[in-house]
């Protein structure tokens, strides 16, 4: 509190630097940023191809599916709920959208159906969690199984692309001004929801219902509607991921997406969003997603046994949480 006086006194660059240093050393985002930067520098030195436009493009388009889902998950976790069913959504939406495309050859219809499925599953999750009062982790874990079963009930085989709609292939594989489309989707969605979360009343309400639902109710905020919106948003963004994945795989596959939910939720938690709601950061999620993708990419680029990907992912999660825990204790938050 002493430092604040000098902050206001010193102007321009000085205060900017102070704030940047504070951000780097005293926030989860800052710590993540430093880790990412260190690994990027290391990989750039170690591998000729790492810091090339193409590799960064590949890296980011690889991660775009997890990232887009994680954007929704960040909002949902801040509102105090969680959705574990997003993994099965990848399969479910995939097989249905591909079969709609095959049967109608209508791209708009196929995508609409996919997004509608996201809305529907999100609504079901919301009803089970909010209406029946079942903890959303349990409710959506159950939905994870149910949605997977539904995908299999819909078709027991993978559904191949027989419609050959070129635009559809572009979604996951095309480029716009040299930038892969999935990366553009990812950045656009990230920016939109960063804005929504930090600059709109909806974003404020999301924080409020997560921080203290009772207080939010007494402040006239429709708590259930806000949480429901979180569930639906997560469902829809999981569908967007599924459609991009579908385009990249070029076939609707029943078996995919196992463990996808752990990846998405893990990234959000790694980004510093609290499991207990009310606190979280879209920037943290972004950095966490990039960090996990960089590790995978680097391990393949350096031709290290790909099993290390799994190990390193786990260790990084532990290290990041460790650093965060130490930081919190230093700040006297616990």
């Amino acid at each position, binding site marked *: 509190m002493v430092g604040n006086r000098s902050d206001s006194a010193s102007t321009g660059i000085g205060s900017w630097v102070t704030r940047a240093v504070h951000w780097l050393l005293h926030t989860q985002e800052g710590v993540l940023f430093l880790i990412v930067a260190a690994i990027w520098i290391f990989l750039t030195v170690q591998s000729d191809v790492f810091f090339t436009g193409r590799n960064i493009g590949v890296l980011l388009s690889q991660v775009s599916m997890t990232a887009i889902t994680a954007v929704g998950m960040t909002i949902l976790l801040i509102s105090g709920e969680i959705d574990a069913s997003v993994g099965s959504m990848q399969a479910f939406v995939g097989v249905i959208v591909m079969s709609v495309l095959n049967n109608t050859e209508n791209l708009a219809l196929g995508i609409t159906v996919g997004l509608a499925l996201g809305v529907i599953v999100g609504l079901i999750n919301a009803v089970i969690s909010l209406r029946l009062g079942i903890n959303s982790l349990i409710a959506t874990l159950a939905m994870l199984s*149910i949605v997977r079963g539904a995908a299999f009930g819909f078709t027991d085989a993978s559904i191949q692309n027989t419609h050959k709609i070129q635009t559809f292939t572009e979604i996951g594989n095309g480029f716009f001004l040299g930038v892969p489309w999935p990366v553009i989707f990812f950045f656009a969605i990230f920016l939109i929801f960063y804005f929504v979360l930090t600059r709109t009343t909806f974003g404020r309400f999301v924080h409020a219902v997560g921080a203290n639902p009772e207080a939010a109710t007494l402040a006239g905020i429709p708590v259930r509607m806000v949480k429901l919106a979180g569930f639906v948003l997560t469902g829809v963004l999981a569908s967007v991921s599924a459609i991009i994945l579908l385009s990249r795989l070029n076939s609707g596959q029943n078996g995919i997406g196992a463990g996808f939910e752990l990846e998405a939720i893990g990234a959000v938690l790694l980004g510093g969003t609290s499991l207990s709601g009310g606190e979280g950061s879209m920037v943290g999620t972004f950095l966490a997603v990039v960090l996990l993708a960089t590790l995978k990419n680097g391990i393949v680029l350096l031709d290290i046994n790909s*099993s290390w990907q799994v190990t390193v992912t*786990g260790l990084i999660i532990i290290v990041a949480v460790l650093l965060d825990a130490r930081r919190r204790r230093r700040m006297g938050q616990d």
Partner: protein
Amino acid sequence: MAAIPVGRKRHQNGAMRWSRLLFSREAGLVILLLAVVALFWILEPSTRQQRVYWDLLREISPNLIAAIGVTMLMLAGEFDLSIGSMLAVTGVTTVVFFNSTENMWAGIAAGLATGPLVGGIHGYLVTKQKMNSLVTTLGSLFALRGMVYVYTNKMPVSDLIGFWDFQDAYYNNLGPAPLPFVLAILLVILALIVLTQTEFGRNVYAIGGNETAARVSGIRVNLIKFMLFVICSSCAAIGGMLLTMQTGSGYFNAGGSGFELIVIAAVVLGGIALSGGKGSLVGTVLGVVILGMTAKGLRLMGVNTNIQLMVTGSIMILAVFMHSFHDRIAILRRR
């Protein structure tokens, strides 16, 4: 305001206890279990043989043992997601030591030692470094699995010596009961005594119910949590040991198909609150059996695995809804 004689009160409580039992979560679970068994009895003739049930008990033993540890940990309000990976760590360690020491007991000891080791690390990180246990063990779920992948290069490690006694133990019976299940039940009874009859066990409930209260009452919360993490990983290691007996090898992907989720689902089904402090191990046992029986029945009926998932998911929602409904009734009854 005269004091009621102690003796009379005891008596009164006897009746109260019966009514409590009748309206308990466990009673609801028993009914659910009977319903599941009855349903399959009608639908699938092969479930009418005794051996199906003995098979069932054998096959749920690893899950049951792992569920004991998870239950105790969750009662104290903490989580362990890494138990699936523990199965593989234990299995691979055991068999590697079989092959290198050519001594069965050395292998078993080494395999079981992985439990306290990993649990100790979790306990340290959570109690000393104040890390969130859910995220920490999510990390070690990946880290442990990855280490097994790297070490084995994703090749199963086979028992080159051939400790047949070790392998046979899994399929041996004590009377009619499968040996693994006898082990599981012994551990359940032990854990049940610890949880209900010892100060340690009551402290576990206290920590889960109100950690601050426990702390200020002089309960050594950190020590107990540390021990619970050790117990939980050790239970998973015993489960992993059973799987190693069954397969005669260290399988790199043991427990890799969502073992932790199946166990946690069973524990929640059994009525252990996610927030801790509430529920009983009996519920967990029933939860494991119900999920195991459902899977077995559906398998015997030849239902597609993924449809099995749907049924299991629906049963979970039903059971958890039943629990929350029960809680509401309990509050009403108290008034």
